[in-house]
């Protein structure tokens, strides 16, 4: 029941939002809907934890063997929680932004939330594909209608990239489907497919293409900085906070357990791509003058590390990925909120045009520093837990001969990330005020509240990560046991 509610509430309220006449009521309606979703998600984690409540399996297209099967294991629960928590935060933080045709804007936002929920919760491949695309279409319209100057070509590139890749995945899905013993799309049937090694090896890339574009992994990342820069900030938060997790989620749920032999075989190749992407993105981030682009590149580097850790294939690294997916979502939304505040006040995102904000806006400065330190993975912040687990997992990995090389080169990016993040803080917050920032005002109460919530989340998970880790423990073990049984 819970997964159905999580999908249906945003879906229906999104459709209703299109018919609301007034922009303000659409805004309030979207916020209300997202809060209800959030309550349902938390209630599902705390009170209604039984399997019956988390699994629904209804008839959908019987002649094709596809069912409306949704259910939450630890991974699904964690990511649906992230989605449910993020949307109210996004709506509150951007409450003051005004949009033309606001009812359409919020309708599309809610539809993309429904799509994301569906991706994280469906356990039927066709249904998964449905939601996978359904999350993309609203995002495309959101960026193209409400985005910046270059929005049309940029988001079109984004759309074409992801669409081609997901079609390749569709071929992979249909191929696996045709090989299932009972002609079914169910995840459990996909786990039981018997494939020759040859088949696994090429199927791997059909699936990985779709996930790599979404994450994005070098060299499929070129759509990402432009799209983040051009999208309206609320959409950028969805894209970077949650939508990139679809890629990681896909690898963990649909790629590695279904094609374990190929995952062992291609693991080193994928890891190398991750490493190249991480270092490359970090070096570019150092050069950026635009806050949005800086964060976009830093996100590529962080996602690369998570993908690398998946292919290290042990409990520690996998748990690190899980918790880091959640943390990264929270932290990056925090960063975007700050960017949004700065942009709204000064009409610019150029680091070189800002400076001395700490004197005029101490509240903003404190919160930005904490969130940025979480971005660098300082101890006591949530990202430290995730990155520590991932690094320790990668270092002790038996999946590859190059574990030390991988650890060392990934470690470089931590230093690089400290360089660009601290440099950004220094140039935005400290130094002398200029004509633009001399009149700066501190942030308002509601913005402070949201940032404080995020900061509290960062520190609480940083000090006491156990509850989050417990959610995903079972999933990690079952996936790894499938992997290990096929270890060459």
């Amino acid at each position: 029941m819970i997964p159905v509610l999580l999908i249906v509430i945003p879906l229906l309220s999104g459709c209703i939002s299109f018919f609301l006449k007034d922009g303000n009521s659409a805004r309030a309606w979207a916020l209300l809907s997202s809060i209800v979703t959030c309550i349902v998600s938390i209630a599902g984690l705390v009170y209604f934890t039984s399997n019956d409540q988390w699994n629904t399996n209804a008839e959908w297209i019987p002649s094709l063997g596809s069912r409306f099967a949704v259910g939450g294991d630890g991974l699904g629960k964690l990511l649906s929680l992230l989605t449910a928590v993020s949307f109210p935060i996004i709506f509150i933080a951007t409450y003051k932004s005004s949009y033309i045709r606001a009812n359409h804007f919020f309708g599309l936002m809610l539809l993309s939330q429904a799509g994301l929920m569906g991706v994280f919760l469906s356990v039927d491949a066709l249904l998964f594909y449905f939601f996978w695309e359904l999350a993309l279409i609203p995002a495309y319209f959101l960026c193209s209608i409400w985005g910046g100057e270059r929005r049309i070509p940029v988001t079109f590139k984004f759309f074409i990239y992801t669409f081609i890749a997901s079609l390749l995945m569709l071929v992979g899905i249909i191929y696996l489907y045709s090989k299932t013993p009972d002609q079914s799309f169910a995840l459990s049937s996909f786990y039981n497919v018997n494939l020759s090694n040859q088949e696994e090896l090429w199927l791997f890339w059909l699936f990985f293409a779709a996930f790599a574009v979404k994450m994005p992994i070098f060299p499929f990342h070129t759509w990402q900085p432009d799209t983040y820069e051009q999208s309206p900030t609320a959409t950028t938060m969805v894209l970077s906070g949650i939508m990139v997790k679809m890629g990681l989620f896909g690898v963990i749920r649909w790629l590695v357990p279904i094609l374990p032999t190929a995952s062992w075989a291609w693991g080193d190749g994928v890891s190398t791509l991750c490493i190249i992407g991480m270092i490359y993105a970090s070096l570019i981030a150092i050069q950026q003058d635009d806050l949005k682009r800086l964060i976009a590149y830093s996100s590529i580097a962080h996602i690369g590390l998570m993908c690398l850790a998946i292919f290290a294939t042990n409990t520690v690294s996998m748990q690190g990925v899980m918790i880091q997916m959640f943390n990264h979502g929270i932290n990056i939304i925090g960063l975007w909120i700050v960017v949004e505040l700065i942009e709204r006040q000064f009409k610019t995102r150029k680091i070189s045009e800002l400076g001395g904000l700490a004197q005029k806006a101490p509240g903003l400065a404190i919160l930005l520093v904490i969130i940025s330190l979480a971005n660098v993975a300082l101890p006591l912040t949530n990202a430290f837990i995730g990155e520590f687990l991932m690094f320790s997992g990668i270092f002790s990995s038996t999946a590859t001969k190059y574990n030390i090389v991988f650890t060392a080169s990934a470690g470089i990016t931590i230093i690089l990330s400290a360089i660009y993040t601290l440099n950004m803080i220094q140039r935005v917050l400290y130094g002398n005020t200029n004509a633009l920032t001399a009149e700066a005002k501190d942030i308002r109460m509601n913005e402070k509240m949201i940032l404080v919530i995020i900061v509290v989340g960062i520190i609480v998970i940083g000090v006491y990560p156990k509850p989050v880790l417990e959610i995903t423990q079972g999933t990690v073990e079952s996936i790894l046991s499938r992997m290990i049984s096929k270890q060459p």
Partner: protein
Amino acid sequence: MNAIVISAIWGVIMMFSGILSKRSAVIRYIALTGLALLVVCNVLELGGNRFFEFNVHNMLVFDSFGLLFNTIAFACTLLFVLLSGRDMEKVGVHVAEYYALIFFILVGVSVSSSFNTLLMLFLGIEIISIPLYILTGSDKRNLKSNEASLKYFLMGAFSTGLMLMGIALIYGAQGNFMIGYGAKTLSPLMSAGLLLLLFSMAFKVSAAPFHFWTPDVYDGAPTVFTSFMSTIVKAAAFIAFIRLFSGSFGNVQPQWQMIVAIITAATLLVGNITAVFQQSVKRMLAYSSIAQAGFMMFALVALNNKASEGLIFYTAAYCLATIGVFAILIRMKDYTFEGFNGLAKTHPVLAATNAVFLLSLAGIPATAGFMAKFYMLSAAINNGHVLWLVILGVVCAAISVYYYFRVIQAMYFKEGESQEIVTTPAFRGLLIGIAVIVIVLGIFPQWLIDNLYYFIPDL
């Protein structure tokens, strides 16, 4: 049988209706009544109620596959007349004749969905083609329309010649005209006949490299008739194509599969890549219809149960969406992409429904077009020999997004001058209805298949 008789009679009635009444509205209502009657009678025949029994010497076989297709074709024609009937009346003064010709085409459609001998195939295809030559040239004062008609006629006559030659050779090889005879081996005579039939049918469905007539004819013909030609007629040709090839040559499929696969690949590439460079939406739709034909060719390449079911579904999905897009295009003053600029602001209903139709044509999930493509891809993967074609197919589907989305971009993301487009509430309501059907079919594809099979007693 019901459909053939009724549509033939109604065609004659329509011809004389022009004498009885000068008012085009009356004529239109007579035509709509006839179409509704056709749909009902055809559905009744699916349930086993035949009103007419003739001894056709097994030359026509009315099986559920053909009847299912007829139902969809007639229902789409009904929608087409409801949406675009008024525009048809603007083409020229001979309104009654246009409707009469459409009914004669429907006779041809029902014959080509139920033939059991090569002679009937030939008759069916010709009954479809000849009225079409006339409809193409119906805008008599327009040079482009005349040129298109002549071109279509010459090329069509040539391909008919090929078809007759092929039929003659097959007659020589197997000694009769029956299909379903099932060639066990391919004798040289048979192979030559097969090739000739393949080429002529490829011409009729505008598959590459026999597609050169399509853009010019579709572009030159009055836009209402382009809509009809590129949907119902094309689908009928496909049904004839698959009936012929699964019936006559199904047993020797491995020997011709590769050549059909190559034609399919060429059609996909030519249609999609050329469509990218078009400046006029009408011409883009002409190439897109070639591209969609490429996807329908998958049914021939795969040739299994899923492929036939999928072809029926594809027909429905493709016809609904294309009729909708054309109905909107006809009302536009400017057929270029720029002509659509800012449509979302001035005519939100038109823009939204058009977007749904285009998304369906592009094959985005939750629209009928996705399910249709899905059926085709899974049929081809089940077949097992043509995985390269499947990959090519999805790459082409991705290319198609480019030109379909150009229209969506123009409508939603660009500013344009407001333009006068006359629409009635009924027109808008019908468009919304079709858009809803497209979405429902995309989410519950079972709905169509189940409802159609419901009428067949023995299933």
